[in-house]
């Protein structure tokens, strides 16, 4: 009754099945792939790598993002995995519990995908087009600036100070975003301008 397990039957158990019998014919590769299927398929094969920097803290660990699809080739890129960049001098491939889970931040269920508007007194958001949203903002800025900009102080000095509109800037955006934000905000005369350095 004892089963005498030959390598053949062993392989069979491992899922190779008929494929193993024609191993010679198929050559290395497909048959082996079938055999090896029990070690989980390596999920990063044929993905596109992109170098990035962790968005969380200012250790600024190097990361490698793996996506299906290549943005540079004009394709839609779906992020499937992120891990530390072993070439990076600071983190040498390591990541903390936040960084190691970055993919699930990018793909969080609570990511926003559509501009939304909340009317005064409403108890919910409604979707709104970008055009409408941007026009609303520009209008509100224009109206408030025209109404409240302090062009000159009591001494008659031009001060171009606008205090009734304020701007809190993101601290995880790039320098380039920061510079563009700076330009636009300062050109308007906004002084209620701050970032996350304090909190």
């Amino acid at each position, binding site marked *: 009754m004892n089963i005498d397990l030959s390598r053949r039957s062993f392989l069979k158990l491992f899922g190779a099945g008929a494929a193993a019998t024609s191993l010679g014919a198929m050559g290395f590769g497909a048959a082996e792939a079938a055999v090896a299927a029990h070690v989980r398929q390596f999920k990063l094969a044929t993905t596109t790598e992109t170098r990035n920097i962790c968005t969380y803290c200012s250790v600024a660990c190097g990361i490698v993002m793996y996506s299906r699809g290549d943005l540079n080739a004009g394709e839609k890129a779906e992020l499937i995995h992120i891990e530390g960049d072993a070439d990076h001098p600071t983190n040498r491939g390591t990541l903390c519990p936040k960084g190691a889970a970055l993919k699930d931040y990018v793909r969080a269920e609570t990511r926003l995908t559509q501009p939304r508007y909340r009317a005064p007194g409403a108890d919910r958001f409604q979707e709104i087009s970008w055009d409408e949203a941007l026009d609303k903002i520009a209008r509100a800025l*224009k109206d408030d600036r025209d109404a409240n900009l302090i062009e000159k102080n009591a001494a008659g*000095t031009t001060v171009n100070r606008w205090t009734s509109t304020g701007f809190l800037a993101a601290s995880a955006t790039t320098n380039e975003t920061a510079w563009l*934000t*700076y330009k*636009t905000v300062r050109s308007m005369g906004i002084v209620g301008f701050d970032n996350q350095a304090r909190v």
Partner: protein
Amino acid sequence: MTNSWTDIKNTDLVIVMGGNAAEAHPCGFKWVTEAKQRRGAKLIVVDPRFTRTASVSDYYAPIRPGSDIAFLMGVIRWCIANDKVQWDYVRNYTNMAYLVREEFGWADGMFTGYNEETRSYDQSSWEYQIGEDGYVLTDETLENPRCVWNLLKAHVDVYTPEFVERVCGTPKDRFLKICEMIGECSSPTKTMTSMYALGWTQHSKGSQNIRGMAMLQLLLGNIGVAGGGMNALRGHSNIQGLTDVGLMSNLIPGYLAIPNEREPDFETYMSTRGNKPLRPNQMSYWQNYRKFMVSFLKAMWGPAATAENGWGYEWLPKLDIAQYDGLRMFDMMSKGEVNVYFCQGFNPILSFPNRGKLTEAFGKLKLLVVMDPLATETAAFWENHGIYNDVDPSKIRTEVLELPTTCFAEDEGATVNSGRWLQWHWAGATPPGESRTDVWIMSNIFLRLRELYRKEGGRAPEPILNLTWDYAHAEEPTAAELAMELNGRALTDVPDPNDPTKLLLQAGKQVSGFGQLRDDGTTMGACWIYAGCFTEAGNMMARRDNSDPSGMGVYQNWSFAWPANRRVLYNRASCDLDGAPWDPERKLIAWDGEKWAGPDIPDIAVTAKPREVGPFIMNPEGVSRFFSRKLMRDGPFPTHMEPFESPVANPLNPEMRGNPVARMFPGDVAQLGDRSEFPFVATSYRLTEHFHYWTKHNKVNAVLQPEFFVEISEELAAERGIRKGGRVRVWSKRGQVWAKAVVTKRIRPLICDGQTVHVVGIPIHWGFKGAARKGFGPNTLGPFVGDANIETPEFKAYLVNIEPAEGSATS
């Protein structure tokens, strides 16, 4: 950070105080473990809680939240008393021998010049004695009682180990053991590094905490050397960059200042920024201020900025007060003085103190615009979420626009790490839905506003109409275009000042460094300290050569570090007076007889002769300062001040509440609690499993720390009948929260001034949006008080009460 993450491996002693590096910066903390392994370095942790950093430390000491200055001044006193001073360094590279004005003094915990009404100091006495030659008077013998050395000795005299124990609750034997460990680093070949973060900044005297340690580091000769320095670990990935680029009320990129209204024109503005050297031969680098300012103004307004109109100086807003920082804006908002407010990737409802006040303030806005990749509590401040956000939407009239933005994975550009490395990153994912980059959104807002001014006219349209906008695609400038502006370029041919027949730079070419910036309008450069980041040789920030031939962790060809690709600031101070490294095994630079050279970029003119030019080239003295002159609003030396809400009185002056010059709005005084009603000290902090309020949106991190909790000692739990895992109510004068209780041996009651002080630890991270369980943040409880110099809220030390709350309503 004066140094870099990778430099920490060169240290002999790490002191983590005012931070929790292992938890908040795990991958940076790696370099502490490297130092331990490579050099046998030791790690000291001083913290109210036995943190995860403490779990791998060699020595731990507890401290009462908000008493760090007493501890640090105590260490300085001990080092002086035990001659643990790097004398060569202190004598030559600090202002120890400088004479201070006779009028300056300190008594009852206060410095001379205090004005109770304005809650400020008249700082006129906080100054050096200046000789007839315009230079500071000094006494190299250190005998003059008015020299900084003697003033310092007198100032720290009160901070005996007994005083430290009384104020900080740190057992004397533990304090002394730490003094001894630190004292060893006064050797020129031993260095200590200080790693700190919000544990020091989020106090009403946060800046003075940091100065305290900086002074200790100077005493030990540890500033500018490998493995030393003052290392602010910093928070968000680009908080350094945003500050560098000046996204603050009072800043212009590169740490230039927004003018105040007493500076009506450009020349007046420049007149106080001459920065004439205070000692012979000193570089006083800020003498170049005008070049940076003009280049900035040209970056803003291009051809419209001319010598005639003061380079467009008039178009810059001018401040009437020091700054309109976040706390002030929210205070103004609560009074109905703000109509439109933008939150770009920022969730102030959870991150600023006194949430109740904030919610009320936001309800007084006409329009709130939130740009964020995630659904934030701020965008939904009007939504009712039971006890987690108990508001009535129908009573809130604020219009809200919530704009979906991309995140790091979907955009390109550079962020600046704590070690000032500008690292470029690339997009690798398609943005979800209709989300757009912040650049696209800001451009579109600006272009539409500009169009309105073009069409309709309006108030002061020039700064808007004249703003340079010469991008290939006006609606979405590329990261490279913007980075090139930050670097700066020649607007016209720039002649070589030494040989006018030659060209220094051809029109349109990128500058190679800030040395090429000009004050005549021939160059533009948005942020002078970034000059060199994107040159004619290409994008330096994208460099990925990770070789480190010196083994010092310099990585000279990896990305770009400001300024000038320098990795360790003040590195001239790593060498003795003659230019030889204090420790030849840890050479950053050295004088080779003709020039400075080494693995790092010298922080001094390469041909500046040793013994002539001091190492601290940004200071007009050329040396560093134990006595900080007028630079700090709350005193030229740190002095012990209690938190605004404290369980004990200040032994230096029992009448003094908090920091006498800290930011405190009149309406908020009534919202301070006292120890009779709120007997326990609360301190807030971050957990390693989470990043602020983002990762609660991430299922993985929500799994790792699912629910809001507070941490208390077994003793306090017993006293209040609280069980491990039980539900508790924590309340302050400003609000209440419900949490789970983690009862632990890692927090112990402290004995301060003869009484038992219990600490309640309150992690941040939870709110009413995301994947984790709904919860609260400590900001519901924290006081609306800001640091005297930098306006950080006092999140690290305030008073609360706590009780069991089993079975009470959860929604």
